């Protein structure tokens, strides 16, 4: 069924169709309309789930952990400060191997207060053991929630998943979305089949004290293996989804006109659609540029990134966050997987923090800078902040 939905309504529909039995959530701009929409689904009897209106995001995640460990599918959603408040229990959820699915609407962290899009919130949780999928349009928001349950719940994976959408650009913008039939989604995901659960008939303890010689390290190793294994399952599930629902997702990286590109721009989220537009217009002028939009950041698609590097002479990595280390996160990880595999220059373009607009004009200038570097064979510098106030070069 075609509907006109915002990104947040699409997330709520994705959750509804996946039939979680317990939802625990706390409001924060720009996530709020997800949990409001779900509340009205439940209030109208359109969704059969228990809704715990917790007093904080920390409790939202803690309640989801406990409910999922009891044997039901759960869902929650948050943004920025809410996600940061969850930090402790995010690591608990993944360590406990609970396939919780959560929507995260990317928003900047204060101070100063800013409710606009920025990826610091999710990047700061990259080591929490969660799968992270970044989306580009409302259809992908909805579809990714359904796919995520199916991937996360496989007994060889059992890792929680963040389905991430950009604040306002998706969360509050309406688009035509194809909402799949409930029956088809039911058949696709199947009933929740927990690998273990709290059950008085079979008493077990979950999360007890463990000594250094106990299997703590082995548990972490198994998580690392599961994150690797997730690459295979993602590929399978995305292909099956494409087939069943008539979609066209690439599992890890959406490539756009990368075939003979002199320079390829790496992006996450909605920057992808702007960049593709710019590529079209520059291609018509004869510039050989392309875009690679990474869908998954965890697991990081190392092989696909290396394969792309073989096809081009330069990679420009756009980050909508900064990490005060060796450049921003997508850049640092891209460079690290390319080391020992290629000598092509890689440069970091940091832009759009706190929701600052990333316009086609800016991206065009970035592409021109990238092409220049591709020709020279070396980057003039590693990290470039693009679009700072008073800096005329990029506007």
């Amino acid at each position: 069924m075609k509907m006109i939905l915002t990104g947040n309504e699409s997330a709520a529909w994705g959750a509804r169709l996946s039939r979680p039995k317990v939802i625990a959530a706390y409001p924060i701009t720009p996530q709020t309309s997800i949990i409001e929409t779900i509340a009205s689904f439940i209030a109208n009897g359109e969704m059969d789930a228990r809704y715990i209106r917790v007093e904080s995001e920390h409790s939202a995640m803690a309640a989801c952990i406990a409910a999922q460990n009891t044997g039901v599918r759960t869902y929650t959603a948050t943004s920025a400060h809410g996600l940061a408040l969850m930090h402790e229990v995010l690591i608990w959820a993944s360590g406990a191997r609970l396939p919780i699915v959560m929507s995260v609407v990317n928003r900047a962290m204060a101070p100063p207060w800013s409710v606009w899009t920025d990826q610091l919130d999710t990047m700061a949780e990259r080591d929490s053991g969660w799968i992270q999928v970044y989306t580009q349009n409302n259809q992908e928001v909805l579809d990714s929630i359904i796919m995520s349950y199916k991937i996360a719940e496989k007994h060889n994976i059992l890792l929680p998943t963040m389905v991430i959408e950009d604040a306002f650009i998706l969360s509050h913008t309406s688009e035509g979305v194809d909402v799949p039939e409930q029956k088809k989604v039911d058949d696709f995901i199947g009933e929740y089949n927990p690998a273990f659960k709290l059950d008085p008939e079979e008493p077990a303890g979950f999360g007890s004290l463990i000594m250094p010689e106990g299997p703590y390290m082995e548990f972490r190793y198994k998580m690392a293996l599961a994150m690797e294994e997730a690459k295979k399952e993602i590929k399978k599930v995305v292909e099956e989804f494409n087939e069943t629902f008539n979609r066209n997702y690439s599992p890890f990286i959406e490539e756009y006109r990368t075939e003979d590109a002199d320079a390829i721009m790496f992006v996450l989220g909605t920057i992808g659609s702007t960049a593709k537009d710019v590529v079209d217009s520059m291609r018509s002028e004869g510039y050989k540029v392309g875009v690679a939009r990474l869908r998954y950041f965890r697991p990081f698609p190392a092989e696909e990134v290396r394969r792309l590097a073989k096809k081009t002479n330069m990679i420009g990595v756009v980050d909508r966050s900064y990490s005060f280390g060796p450049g921003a996160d997508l850049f640092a990880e891209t460079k690290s997987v390319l080391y020992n595999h290629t000598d092509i220059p890689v440069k970091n373009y940091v832009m759009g923090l706190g929701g600052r607009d990333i316009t086609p004009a800016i991206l065009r200038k970035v592409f021109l800078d990238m092409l220049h570097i591709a020709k020279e064979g070396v980057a003039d510098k590693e990290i470039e902040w693009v679009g700072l106030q008073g800096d005329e070069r990029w506007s």
Partner: protein
Amino acid sequence: MKKLTIPEEEHMLSGHTACLGCGATIAMRYVLKALGKNTILSIPACCWAVIPGVYPHRTLDVPLLYTAFEVTGAAISGIREALDAMGKEDVNVVGFAGDGGTADIGLQALSAAMERGHNVFYIMYDNEAYMNTGIQRSGSTPMGAWTTTTPGGKKRMYKWEPKKSVAEIMVAHHIPYVATATIAYPEDMIAKLKRAKEIKGPKFFQILSPCPTGWRHAPDKTVEISRLAVQTNVFPLYEVIDGKYKISIKPKNPKPVKEYLRLQGRFRHLTEEEIEKIQRHVDENWKALLKKERCSQEEE
């Protein structure tokens, strides 16, 4: 002949790792005897996160979810709603947390869970300090006590503030059942737990659980100290059902508080005047409790 009311069934197995004479361990044993096998436990960081034993050992034969320190209120809400969603409404859900995890860091999640009205038990085993981390002051540490963060010193920096009344905070949530209990009165504790089991909604227990290690008393004094806490009115036993107070034990001739204090090294430093002050504080609390009982029963 009087019949023994303590159930014979046992859900605490041998091999726990608590200190000798640990009151919190006895509290758990009675709670499980009263609630039985059809129970799921949620335990945050606290002594009781260690007492069941190191993986893969477990001294409890009921399912047990270990959680982060401050989440017990949220965790039992999640377990309850999941069970109800699965149609398992008969399973008891029990949060079992220390005073730190209840009065301090977990108060927010607890308050919210009680206010939302889930059908759960929350049991605060009150050993009056953060014992797991080595005896630091909590909001539930009593007036005058030594702890490692109120170590006295030249400035006599002890815990001078009154103990926070968590049970009273729970009463203010208008939940159907609030009770205090202590291990020296197991039949009282078990009767209360069984009464509470019949009530649908949030049920809160504060169980005073002497801790030889933190209170600095001999391990064989645990029960005696627990009994003295009641007989001196330091820790009155009562229940509040639908807002109506009922004091469980009213000592005819309350013993002086001094008798309770002198058995515990944590109060060793107290001067006569300081003991006097604590006595006055205890007397005032007791009077206030009697008044609450009278007022709340009056409308009948």
